[in-house]
Each structure stands twice: as structure tokens, then as C-alpha cells.
């Protein structure tokens, strides 16, 4: 199997370690993993701002780069949702692209759902000393049905204990441009998330979307919490460390 790792712009810019962790996890499945040249942005920011022509242009570009692979894996529920659920909508009325969008959508997976549902792989469980609490990001949860996968995978990590926080399915208030446009409202929402994380009393909060994690970490640190670690699930599953 030849698969493509799609590295989101946030991972590229803000936290490359997530990309390398995902790479290691995928390579461990025995598949041939390629980071397609020329990949940039899936077009979600343009789409969510309501700019269809720009979203369409970037979607076409991404499709051309990703079509050749047996599977496309993304360490982000939100970008995976864009390709799986939005691309087919974008091209619903375009006979040339509609079929291609559908095929690509079916082959595209969020990282944990790929590992748990598609590969069902018994990966070499790393060590993690401590407890974690999992934040269910909205697009992955409600768009792709990602709920049990990350938990199943986390429970395989040696030494890790899972402590659920209250309202783990509540939005963290990030919402991409929402957190920039409505900063105060967004901060108010993430405050409730920080309270929930504190209530869980875990050593680390883990999630599958870097956007949420940056938002949560940013608020936690501003509130003076310097100890709770904020980790992408790929980083935990791959056993930490830089690529």
C-alpha cells in the first residue's frame, strides 16, 4: 500500500513534530509512506469564510496531488473532514470532478481512524508515564465519527492512564477564523474547556487537531498553568521525540 501523508498548514508552521510523529506511526504499519511534493493547504479557510471560488481552486490542486495514492492520511479531523465531506459537495454539480472528489473522499482518513479502523494495526506501544485526558474535536467527532479510535489507541500505550474530563465533547472555541474574529467569545469558551481539563486532573491533555491544542495551550499558559502538557495524539502514540 502506498499512502500519502498530508501535513496540515498548522502542523507545518507551528509544530513539525506532529508531522514526524504521524510519519513514524504510518511507517510502522509497513505501508510505503510518501509526503507528496507541493502540498500546501486544503482550502478550508477559504471555504469556511464562504469564498467558494478560492476553495474550489485549492481543492482541485490538492486533489491532483493526492489522487495517485491508495490512501491519504491527515493528522487532523478538521482537514480530513474538509476532504471527506466538503470536497464532494464542492464538486457536486461538476461532472468532471464529482467522481474524482468522491473517490478521494473515500480514500482519505484522519490519522487515528486510519490506524484503528483501516489498518487495525497492532502497533508497538510506546511508554508514557502519566495520565491524559482526551478532548474530542468537533469536526472529527461530529463530522467523521471519531470517538472510540483515539481512546482505543491511547489505552495501548504502556503506563498511560486515561482520565475523562467532563464535557469532553464540548467545543474548545477555536473554530479557525472564529477565534481571531471573536477573540473574547472564543476565550470565554476555551476557559470552560480549561476548567474541565483541570477537573480531570490529568498530566496532559491530548487531541487530534492542532488548532484546538494551540487554543487550549494558549489559554492554559495565560491562566498560569505551566505544568499540564498539551499533546497531539500522534506525539503520544509515536512515543514522543523529534523526527
Amino acid at each position: 500500500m502506498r499512502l500519502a501523508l498530508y501535513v496540515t498548514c498548522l502542523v507545518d508552521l507551528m509544530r513539525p513534530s506532529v508531522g514526524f510523529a504521524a510519519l513514524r506511526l504510518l511507517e510502522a504499519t509497513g505501508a510505503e509512506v510518501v509526503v507528496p511534493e507541493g502540498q500546501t493547504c486544503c482550502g478550508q479557510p477559504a471555504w469556511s469564510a464562504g469564498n467558494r471560488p478560492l476553495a474550489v481552486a485549492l481543492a482541485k490542486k490538492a486533489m491532483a496531488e493526492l489522487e495517485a495514492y491508495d490512501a491519504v492520511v491527515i493528522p487532523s479531523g478538521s482537514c480530513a473532514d474538509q476532504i471527506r465531506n466538503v470536497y464532494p459537495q464542492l464538486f457536486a454539480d461538476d461532472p468532471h470532478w464529482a467522481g474524482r472528489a468522491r473517490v478521494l473522499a473515500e480514500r482519505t482518513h484522519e490519522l487515528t481512524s486510519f490506524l484503528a479502523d483501516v489498518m487495525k494495526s497492532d502497533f508497538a506501544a510506546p511508554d508514557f508515564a502519566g495520565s491524559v485526558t482526551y478532548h474530542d474535536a468537533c469536526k472529527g467527532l461530529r463530522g467523521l465519527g471519531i470517538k472510540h479510535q483515539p481512546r482505543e489507541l491511547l489505552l495501548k500505550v504502556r503506563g498511560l492512564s486515561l482520565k475523562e474530563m467532563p464535557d469532553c465533547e464540548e467545543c474548545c472555541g477555536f473554530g479557525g477564523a472564529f477565534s481571531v474574529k471573536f477573540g473574547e467569545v472564543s476565550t470565554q469558551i476555551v476557559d470552560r474547556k480549561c476548567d474541565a481539563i483541570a477537573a480531570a486532573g490529568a498530566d496532559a491533555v491530548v487531541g487530534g487537531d492542532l488548532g484546538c491544542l494551540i487554543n487550549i495551550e494558549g489559554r492554559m499558559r495565560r491562566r498560569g498553568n505551566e505544568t499540564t502538557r498539551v499533546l497531539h495524539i500522534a506525539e503520544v502514540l509515536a512515543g514522543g521525540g523529534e523526527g
Partner: protein
Amino acid sequence: MLAAGRSQAMHFHARAGEKVRNAVLQRALQKAKPLFVGKRAKGIASLAEDGLDFEMLRSTGKNIRNRNLADLDVWLDIFEERATATGAEVLWARDGAEVSRLVVDIARRHGVSKAVKSKSMLSEEAHLNEALAAAGIRPVETDLGEYIVQLAGETPSHIIAPAVHKTIGEIEALFATEHGRPLETRTSADIPAMAQEARAVLRQHFLSAEIGISGANFLIAETGSAALVTNEGNGRMVTTLPKVHVVITGIEKVVPTLEDFATLMRLLPRSATGQSISNYVSLLTGTKREGDHDGPEKTVFILVDNGRANLLGSDYQDMLRCIRCGACMNHCPVYFSLGGHAYGWVYPGPMGSVLTPLYTGIENALDLPHASTGCNQCGAVCPVDIPLPALMHRLREEQNERGLRPWSERLALKAWAWVAGRPALYRWFARRAARYLNWLADGSGRIRIFGLAPEWTAGRDLPVSSGRTFHELYSARKKP
């Protein structure tokens, strides 16, 4: 577009800030949210006791509403015919102003000086209370929440819990002043006593009012009836004690049969308050007949368009399925950070973010379709499966198509897309940006003030990376 002039929706952003900083409001909201969410969850779970499944019932409800809308004109005709046959009068209103005109006219004809009301959102759309007052008729809201809000000179902030934004202390202060008694210290244990106090005051109004004005949760074509769902019983007083009863509803509220109504009633109270059925369900048909003990001598239905007909056959038709249960706002993280007044018009929360632009003009509510994190908790709970985020998204697209977005936003997106379309350039920019962010962080791993996103860093640090992009590190690693 008549309501546009009086919608405050354009001030959403400024109001949002104000509401977030209002500590009293925040306390009231933080108390209410878990109650709403918990009660609905229990209500939905209790469906299993009747051998029902939420998803199944929800798709039935959705289908019923879709069929209503597909032949709306037919059901309205049938409703008019049957209602007229029972002795009621059916009038039609194009907009809010016409609603007010008709009601004032009816009141004048009957020489009325006081009207009791049971919650009708359409009368909010129409600014009916102001119109009545201007005509010398005193409107008295009789729903406890509405009564409180009216005493305070405010508008409702929630469609089923109009005073949810108020604390007990605020309500006590209001009652003490308005009911002319000394102020007391109140806790939630005193709520029944406070309700009792309001009831005693309202009783006088029920007995002295000559006209009752209500909304209706549904109109039933088959029988020409209005269905009214309440928890306080005030709806029954309003619709049966005064000699004239006026029902004001939107045209989309009509359902074909009693059976359809029964199905929707399995969804409505459960979604709204978690109850399997509300305390009072009234089916109001016609006028008082020979031998009846109570009931109005005259019943008038005012069926209102006010922008609804425009949605039929449009990209937004799904919104007309709404049964006004409030579940979308009860699960919305944005609503519960602000309360309903920030939304600036009759309908708050996610449903308001769709309805307000549609009914008052897209150009008059530019922020509302963006006032969402896209979490889709609203869409997931909506009992008639309205894809609220998709409708907000369609509104955003329409704003772009009509050139209504600020130029800075359009330019930023264009520039981003232009760069993202050119991988080499994109890589170069990303590297520069990573370096720049790292420099701003000044070795601390976080940026405390970021000029490009000031609202972001007003409340949060921006965590930053090592200053190297993934693609940069990856290609360096690949090279031997």
C-alpha cells in the same frame, strides 16, 4: 425588510464583548446551561421507554415538516376553510406592521383597553406591544419569564426561557419595586414563592382583560385548530377567559393532521425542556359553543408571512422546519457565552444566526452567520435535523457573492489562496513566517501580543515552534 430598521444585529461584535465581560450575566448563564443540556439528554434517553429511537423519530419529524412545506399553500387553504367552519376568522399579514395594524384594529372594534398575552414570538417580530401601547391598549405578558422581561423593559433572550439571562437577585429586586414591597434575600428555594407572587398579580389581569393574544406551536389543517404547549397554564387562561382570542403564527406552522402533531409533540418538549410532555397541551378549535362554560366569543387567526414565503424553494427552505424548541441555542457554546441579547433580534443562538439575516436582510446582520465555531452541536441536537452550520455557511457565501465582506478579509483570503496555489512560494513564506513567529516569541516559546491577531492574544498566548517548518526539516532529512 421592515424589521431591519429595528434589528440590532449589526452590533453583534460590540455587544458580544460587553456580554462576555458582564459577570452577573455570566453567572446566570453558567447555571442554566447544564440544566438545559442534562434535561434534554434525559428526555431523549426516555424515548427508549416507549420503544422509540431519537434518530428514527427525528427523521420522521423531518419528513413530516418537509411534506408540510412542499404543499404549504394547500395545507393553509385547508386550515382556513376548516377554521372558518368552526366559527373562527382567518386573516393574513404580509409583515409585522400589518400584524400590529390588524390586532389594534380588532382591539379597537371590541373597545378593549387591556390585552393578556401568552408568548408569541411573532408579536416580538411585529413589535406588537409597542403598537398596542401606542393605541392606548395595555399588553400584559403572562408567561413568567416574559412577565419578568416585560417588567424590566427588556426583550426575551431565549425562545423558551425568556429571562434566562437574569439572576434570582435581579428578579427579586424587580418584583420588590414593581409589586411595592420590601426587598428580601432569595435563593433558588424561593422560586415557587416568587412564581406564586407573580401569579397573584397576573390573576387580576386575566380577570380584567378583554382580549387574549397567543402564539401557536402548530396549526392543524385537518381540524382548523391551534395547538398551544405551555408549562404554566397561563396559555389556557389567555385563550379561554377573554371574550376575544387572537392567535398569531407564522404560515410555516401548519401541519396536516392530528397524527402529525402527535409525532412532533414527541420531539418538541423533549428537545426543549426534557419533558416527555409539557404540563399543558391545548388544542383550540373555534369559538365558545352553546352550553360551553368558557372559551372566547370571537377567535381570530392571523397568519403571517414576514419573509417566510421567500424561503420556500430557496437554499434556506430547511430552516422553515424549525419547531422553536430552543435546543440549538441550549447546546451552543457561543450562545452560552453571551446570552440572547447579543444577537440583536427576536431569535438568538444558531437558529437566530440563520433567521435574522434572512428575515431582516443579509446586509443588516453581517456578523451573525460567522458567530459560530462550526462545532455543529446545534445541528446534532436539532429535532428536525436542520443543518444549521450549512445554512450559516450558505449565508457566508451569499455575503461574498454580493461583495458584503470587508475588503481586508477578502484580500487576506485571496493572498493566502494565491500563495497556497504556488508550492515553492508557499514553502518560502512558511519558512519566513516560522522564523518570524519564533523571533517574536523571543526564546520563550510563546507570543504574548501578536499584532496580526490582537483579539487572539488578548486572552491567550500563541505557542510557537522551533522556527523550522515541517517541510523544511523533512527535505533536509531526506537529503543524505
